[in-house]
Every structure is written in C-alpha cells, then in structure tokens.
C-alpha cells in the first residue's frame, strides 16, 4: 500500500481530526531548545490520541542555511534507491544522512533520511528555485507513493510521526536541536489508522501548518486549488490550507494579513460598514478568492522563516489563545500550556475569530490599514 492510500485509506472526503496546537517564537530570533515547546504540548496530552505528533523548527540548521533541507520518509529500501537517483539528477547534494533517532514509545517508524541540497544549475529554466524544488517534492510524493518528503525548506525542519508529541520529540532527539520558532501538534484522527506522513506539521518549502479542525468547504477549496496546478493527493484539509497560503502569499504576493482575510473573511455586514476604499478592497477579495474561504471549525498555526501566524475560522469554532512575555510570543489551543512554560506572562488574550495574530522578526510590519489590530 502506498503512502497516499495510507493517508486516507477509506477514501473518505478528507481526513477528519481534532488536535492540540502550540507555537512559541522568540521575536528577536534567539534560538532556544525543545524543552518548553515539548512540555507545553505534552500538557495537552488528552487532546491527542497518540496517533500523531510533530514539530516544526525554524533557525534549525544555521550551518546550512542556504541549502534546502529535505526530510524524507521511505517505506522501503527500493523507494530510497529510486528517490536517490531522482535527487542526484536534479540536485547537488551537500549532506546525505539518516535522521538521528532513538528508542521511544512510537510505533513502526519508517526509514528517515535528511539531505541538504541545491538545485542543479542549468536545469532551471524560467522557474524560481522554490518552484523547482516544489515540483520535485510533488513528483517524489506522487510518483511511487513509497517515499514522502515531509520537510523541504531552508534552515528549518519538520519532525513528526505516529505517537504522542512528547514521544515523537524523544524519538527524534529533539533535545539536541535549537530554533527561534517552534510549532507543535498533537493529533486525534477519527478515521485513519495514523501513519507517519499523516501527522502534522504539513510542509511545503519553508511553510508549515499545524491544524486543528475540519474544513467543511474542503470540496471547493480543493477544486479551486486544482485550477492552479496543486495536486491534492493526500485528501486532507490541512494540505489544502498549506497550498492556499502558498498560492496567496508566495505566488500571488499577498501579505499574510490579507491572506488571512481570504481564508477567514469578515462578514458582509461588517464589510458594508467599512469606509469606501476598504469596502471595495474587501469585496474584491471575497469576490476573487471566495473559493478559498475556509469554512468550518479550524485553528491553525502557520509558520515560515521569520513569521508565525495564528488564525481561526471567522466564527472561532476551535480554540486559540495567544500570550506574550518579553520577546516571546506564544500561541496555544489552551492557555494552561502558556502558563506552564511562561508563568505570569505579560499578557494573554483570545484573538477574535478570523483575526490573525502575527509574530514577526524585526519590525517589518505593514501599516495595519487593511486589517484590524494585528500585531498585538
């Protein structure tokens, strides 16, 4: 059976799950260990059922920050051989090693490999490096169904698998790593046996998503993205979220605040009350990107290099709490986890439905004309 089949073995419309989310970012870019993120996500143990846990870490590989770090799961040795050939044809490979792991309370870990690569010069025509890498990642993931790239960004990495998040952290020896931004996920799938690739975070290039919820608009979100060449092979709504942000931000160059307004737009009666210019803007956004409105309950933590974004659906059917202490921004499904790792925070608050919380390195924020008070 291939990965793709494993991910949604009953061919349900989409993977359905409930979850715990935690995100922690040092806004000055100072790197810190896995200790607090792991404690925080472990504190929400009961929100998962042991069928998936994972972490995304940014500022992870400073020594190789110019290289794409590919984390790949293999179902068997043959898949690795095939994939290695494909990689050698397309990339110059700096480092090629097994991802260090240790015994932990996890089930059937697959073979996991890590590569630091650069696209081969001369192969790229009329294409950005990112597009080239994305194309190859999609190719590996769909070609055999036995190799799965679960991390493909620069200076960042995803570690994930079947188990509770604290066990996954132990398995991957996360105590050895440092980063300035960690997002964490504990999973409660309802309808899949749980396989290592199905855990969160989901990743494409340096974008990651951890997601709690069910996207009731999945059917149309998926069909819309298919028009732009995205192949939603995994049949999960999380995948659709990742591609939506990739389309809006990387390809259509929308700022994150505007992209958030696409997936969780204001209601028409709110838009109608805005001054004319903003009303036209928000109306155009809904008219153009209505098919990317993510409807149904979700909270997500989205991250890429230098940014962490928390967002819920526009009527906030899933929880998300934010907290700030010193240079740290916290996002969590439950406030208790913030209090655990950061007693007496400067402040905690519950963002409104559809209102993004954005943590950014440096002071490169847009003037907040378009959206209501974003950076808290």
């Amino acid at each position, binding site marked *: 059976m291939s990965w793709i089949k494993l991910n949604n073995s009953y061919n349900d419309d989409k993977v359905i799950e409930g979850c715990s989310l935690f995100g922690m970012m040092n806004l000055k870019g100072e790197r810190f260990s896995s200790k607090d993120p792991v404690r925080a996500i472990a504190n929400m143990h009961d929100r998962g059922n042991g069928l998936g846990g994972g972490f995304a870490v940014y500022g992870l590989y400073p020594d190789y920050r110019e290289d794409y770090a590919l984390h790949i799961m293999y179902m068997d040795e043959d898949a690795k051989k095939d994939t290695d050939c494909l990689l050698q044809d397309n990339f110059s490979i700096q480092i090629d090693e097994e991802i260090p792991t240790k015994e932990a309370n996890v089930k059937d870990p697959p073979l996991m490999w890590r590569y630091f690569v650069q696209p081969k010069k001369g192969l790229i025509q009329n294409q950005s490096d990112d597009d080239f890498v994305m194309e190859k990642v999609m190719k590996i993931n769909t070609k055999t169904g036995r190799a799965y790239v679960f991390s493909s960004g620069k200076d960042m990495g995803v570690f994930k698998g079947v188990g509770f998040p604290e066990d996954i952290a132990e398995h991957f020896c996360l105590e050895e790593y440092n980063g300035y931004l960690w997002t964490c996920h504990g999973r409660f799938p309802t309808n899949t046996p749980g396989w290592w690739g199905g855990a969160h975070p989901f990743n494409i290039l340096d974008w990651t998503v951890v997601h709690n919820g069910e996207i009731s608009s*999945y059917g*149309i979100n998926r*069909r819309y993205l298919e028009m732009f060449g995205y192949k939603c092979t995994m049949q999960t709504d999380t995948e659709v979220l990742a591609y939506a942000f990739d389309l809006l931000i990387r390809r259509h160059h*929308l700022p994150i605040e505007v992209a958030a307004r696409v997936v969780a737009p204001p209601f028409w009666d709110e838009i109608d009350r805005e001054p004319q210019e903003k009303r036209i803007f928000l109306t155009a956004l809904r*008219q153009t990107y209505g098919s990317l409105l993510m*409807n*149904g309950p979700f909270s997500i933590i989205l991250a890429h290099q230098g940014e962490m974004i928390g967002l819920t659906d*526009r*009527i906030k059917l899933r929880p998300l709490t934010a907290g700030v202490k010193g240079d740290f921004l916290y996002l969590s499904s439950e406030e208790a986890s913030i209090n655990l790792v950061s007693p007496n925070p400067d402040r905690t608050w519950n963002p409104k439905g559809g209102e993004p919380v954005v943590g950014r390195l440096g002071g490169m924020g847009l003037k907040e004309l378009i959206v209501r008070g974003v950076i808290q």
Partner: protein
Amino acid sequence: MKTYLEPEYTVERDDDRCIRCKVCVNQCTFDTHYYDQEDDKVYSKNENCVNCHRCVAFCPTQAITIRRNPNAYTTNDNWTQEAIRDIKRQAEVGGVLLTGMGCDKPNYSYWDRLLLNASQVTNPSIDPLREPMELRTFLGSKADRLEFELESRDMVLTTKLAPQVCVEAPILFSALSYGAISFNVHEALARASTEFGTLFNTGEGGLDSRLYGYGSHTIVQVASGRFGVHPDYLDVGAAVEIKIGQGAKPGIGGHLPGEKVGPEVSRTRMIPIGTDALSPAPQHDIYSIEDLRQLIYALKEATDYTKPVSVKIAAVHNSAAIASGIARAGADIIAIDGVKGGTGAAPKVSRDNVGIPIELALASVDQRLREEGIRNRVSIIAAGGIRSSADVVKAIALGADAVYIATAAVVAMGCTVCQRCYTGKCPWGIATTDPWISKRLNPDIATRRLVNLLQAWSAEIKEMMGGMGVNAIESLRGNRLHLRGVGLTDTELKILGVKMAGE
C-alpha cells in the same frame, strides 16, 4: 369535423354546496361554466376545462371538484393516453402541437437522486438564527488573482475588476417576456427583485418604460427578434443577456401572436399593433462563436463596459464545449437552461425531447471550465426545473453561482402549471395581455408573494448550509463533497462528480 377527443377533465359540482354566485362562471376564461337561469343551476362544459383550478380556488363554498376524465382508453404502456390523444388532435388540425410550461415527463430530474450532507460530532452545525449565514452572491467575471501596490505603506488595488451584479440570495427571476406575460407580472417581478435584492430578467420583449425605475434590479435581454432593444433599454439594466436558446425549445425561435400585441406591448416591443412578433430560431448575426464575440463586445461597447454581459443557452449535448467557447468569447455570465425549463409556448415535441437535464449540463460545464482553468472568468446561472430551496442548494453545490427561477415564480403568483400559457387566456392573469384577464393579478399581492417565496427559500437554504457547517454560500458553491447520489449509475455519478451515498 367531429372531434374524437374526449374531455380531459370532468367538473363535478356539489349542488348542495353551490350558492349560484357565478364566481366560477366569471373566473373561467375558457368558458367552462355557465349559469342556466331557468334551472337556476350552474353547469360545466367539460371539454373546455384545462384543470387550472381558478374556479376551485375561488369557489366560496368549495363546491367544485375537478377530476381527470375517468374514461380511459385501454391501458397500454406504449400507446399511452397522451400518445393517442396527441395523434387524434394532430389528425384533426394537421399542425404542430403547442404546449406551455416545462417538460412534464418523469426521469429527467436528478435533484431527487442527490442528497445533502450535515455535520455530526467532528464539526459543529451552525444555527442560522444565532449566527450570520451569508447568501450574498456576485455575478460577473472574476479576476484570477488580485494585485496590489504599496503606496506609502497602504495597499492599493491595481487589478481592474470586471463589472459585477450583486444579489442577496443566489436566486434570480428568469426571463418572462412582456407580451407573453402581462404588465402586472413584470411589475411584480421588478418590485419583488428590488425589495428583496435580486434581479429579474425582462425576457425578449423589452421593458416597459414605466418600469425603468427598477433598472438596477433588471437584466435586459437581447434576443433574436431584438424586440425593444434600444440605447435607453441597454442603459437602464444592471446586466445585459444575449438569449441564444431556451431549455423548453432549444434551437427553436418564438412566436407571439398578433392578438397579444396591444398598444403597450407594441410600444415596448417596437412593432405595430396586432402584428405577430416572430423571434428567429438563431440570432441571424450569430452563425458561429466569433460572431457571438462580436455581439458580446458590441453590447459591452454600447454600455461602456459597465455591465456584465450574460449569454443564455439551452442545455444540449455539447454544453461543456459551448460554454467554454462562450467564456473565451468574453461573456461574464453563462446561463444554462435545462430540458425541464418552462416556456409560454413551445412545440410539445421539442419541449419533451430536446435538450438535456440541467444537473448533468451544469456539472459538466463547471468541471470543464475548471479543467481549462477559466471557471473564474464567468459566473454560471443554472435554470430549468428548480422547484425548491433544496434544488437551489444542490445546484450551487454542483457548481452554479446562482439559479434562475421562472416557473416557481409564476406558481407563487397563482399559476397551477396547467400548461395552457400559449392560449393567451391564462385564468390566473399571468400568461396573457388581455386587459380584462390580466388585471386579476394584483401587483401588490403578487409582489408580496414573490418576496415571501424568496425569503422562505433563503431561510431554508440557510438552515441547510448551517447543517452542513458552512456560513457563506461561496463555501457551498462547487462543493460536491456535500452531495451524495442514490439510484444513479457509475456514469451518472461520474458526470455529476458526486459519490454514491454510503461511500
């Protein structure tokens, strides 16, 4: 020639209940009832009865019952009563059989074999009485992407947006032409559209200048006869629609008999009083897709690119390819009218045999436009046989941006779908221009009934959407995962793009 046709219906009158008020006599426009002074009794000529129920509804003592004539020919599944009657009628008159309304044959409806989803446990349903539930829909060509410029740290939209029309629910009133229907009906449609926040379509008979005040809620139609098309007419509408075809009679033109062309219809249609208004089968300046492009852009030029231009076609075998061509020809909206679509008059053979069901046409058009990456360029309006809010929801989920309703609208105003629109004697005052008959349709009441219908359907759509856990219509549009099929073959499921129930 002695007719061999037996009355289709028989009128039974309970003499104990009848109070001889003669309402039935006065209301029937087919002269079915008459009062005999000597007997002091009301009698009926069964052969005139069309089963419109006008007398039944207005009889103050419920004395009248109309039944299908129990005299039936020998039962035969091939030689049905209808087949035999049709032949006898043709043998007597030697002409094309006319009929009105949409196809009345079974098996063409897929709505009833599609079922909707609802939330349970893993996602919450949303209560539309407590939470916002958005049906607002914009029709017109959408950009593939939006572009901005940063000007002194403000985002400024640089994408030029195509003109749009806004409706507060994805339900529009479909084309009903003035002349085929009375002024009062047009007035009610215009007022209801304005009050509710949707659009009505003038049909191909122009727009009486008394209704220009409702122009912002009007789609003005340009059809093969070009009746009533002039600069003011194009200017006054919110959108312009080119009518290529109609689901009830694809490939066939129209014929408004001269008797229906009185002074007002004459003025509006710009034809002499009493002349037949003949709409040619094709538009004679459109013999190919590139000609359509010219007309689309001629209308856009004429309206200074301020209004969306719609192209209405009948659902036929190659709808998907045709729709793709229409999108590429520059249309902003494509209206597709299925085989169940209604009409004021059509050859019966055409109504019942030509065209395909809207469900299949809609599904294949939406899918084709997506595969070609041009679905954003056009809005799709599905028409032809939408009977309920559930049909609307299913049409949206299959991929329509909105639906057109006309039969449902006239039913709301009183019509009982007796299929005699082509006679010009509509006893409900709808499909007629006879001043005596048409004044029985009170525009105030008809407006109220239409608005009520739209409100009722909107409330029901909100309930169904809330049950599915979505609070904006755009999350339902094209979302076929909210549909499941029952009693459909694999091929039907494939074309509809839906899974089997239980799957």
